[in-house]
């Protein structure tokens, strides 16, 4: 079967590549672009280890053909840290031990980025409700909830500081 040319903007970088229509987005990210932080757990949409952001919204990259993402802006875990500096969510996951084996972590982080972009000041209960989209087999979720709330606080004060500087 023929391949198709697609353009993806991944973590801010535009790439054009030629893919078989059947190739899943997660495999293109991992194999063609070498971004192995996005994991595969179930390949049927349930576990969430493959979660990435498409145009700012979380999706399952295992139930998305790469051709469907042609033209889209994709963000993955590799785009979170700025050089040596971890993203506040990564810092908070570290501090609160929001991970054990780390396999769910990239997908969970990307889902949490979306959660906080949509609501910068969530309650623990709303975090618990929203992270139900992603399974974690290790932590029992409590420390993840804690970490998201802690990161939200840091990001809010960072954002305030940022506006002060800007104004």
């Amino acid at each position, binding site marked *: 079967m023929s391949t198709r040319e697609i353009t993806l903007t991944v973590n801010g970088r535009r790439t054009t590549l030629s893919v078989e229509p059947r190739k899943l987005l997660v495999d293109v990210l991992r194999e063609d672009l070498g971004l192995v932080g996005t994991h595969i757990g179930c390949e049927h949409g349930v576990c969430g280890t493959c979660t990435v952001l498409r145009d700012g919204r979380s999706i399952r990259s295992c*139930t998305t053909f790469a051709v469907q993402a042609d033209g889209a802006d994709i963000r993955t875990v590799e785009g979170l840290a700025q050089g040596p500096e971890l993203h506040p969510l990564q810092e908070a996951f570290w501090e609160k031990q929001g991970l054990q084996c780390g396999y769910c972590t990239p997908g969970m982080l990307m889902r949490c980025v979306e959660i906080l972009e949509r609501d910068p000041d969530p309650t623990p209960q709303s975090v618990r409700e929203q992270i139900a989209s992603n399974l974690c087999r290790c932590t029992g979720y409590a420390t993840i909830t804690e970490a998201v709330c802690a990161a939200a606080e840091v990001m809010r004060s960072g954002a305030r500081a940022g506006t002060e500087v800007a104004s």
Partner: protein
Amino acid sequence: MKPAAFDYAAPTRLADAIDLLVAHADAEPRVLAGGQSLVPLMNFRLAQPGFLVDLQHVDGLSDIRLTDDELVIGAMVRQSTAEESADAAAGAPLLVEALGHVAHPPIRNSGTIGGSIAHADPSAELPAVALALDATMTAAGPGGERRIPAAEFFRGPFETALGPDEILTEVRLPRRPGGHAFVEHARTHGGFAVVAVAVDLAVDDAGTVTRAAIALSGVGPTPIRATATEQALVGTVPDAESIRSAVAATVAVLSPAGDVHGSSETKVDMARSYLRRGIELALDRAASRR
């Protein structure tokens, strides 16, 4: 768990999409909406279409329109877009409440309204909503457009009135002031419903039920209307006892198939419980909106 090979096109015009379905009829083509049912099936190789027509760029399928008497949702409207739409909330709050039970946000960010209805999973939420609200499905095919009432649309598990070269373009939901409720049991949050109940009803100032529409998912090969319960409620001022007997009228004729999530008996028990809860909640809301 990798899909079999297929050819792919992403047309921008509806007519082209239909032409592609016709032209590739031998390849058992399918349309691809959000892919949240189709891609998992293909990953399991339970579905192996030879050609996919991606509808995401087709003009005119992603609009939400609210008129005085109906909400019209384009088939390709993402579930999360509908969930967040003020027009949808105003025009069909039952739909919006049900969407909260459809999988999880990352699935709803891809999955579409039309995809869910066209897929016709007997455990899915939206078909029950469409049935309860007497929605009309607009289908476009080589022979033109036709409108199919919900009551005729769902034919069996994963089976609809759509022909192989027809595309569902929109879902028209009549606006019905009153009280609504969507309640369900899923094994874990975000899972498919084991039993789901959609209720839409209206009461007059005296508390008399003037209209009742109730549909269930999970208890039959298609969503079904709880007609006996609706009839028992209309014209009455329901109390706990009359609700119970109205529910019993439907429950008595249910014979769902058992599966790993519950025996037939348990599904009946669930239907009984959730019907009651749904009716009570809808009555409360109807009363408070009076």
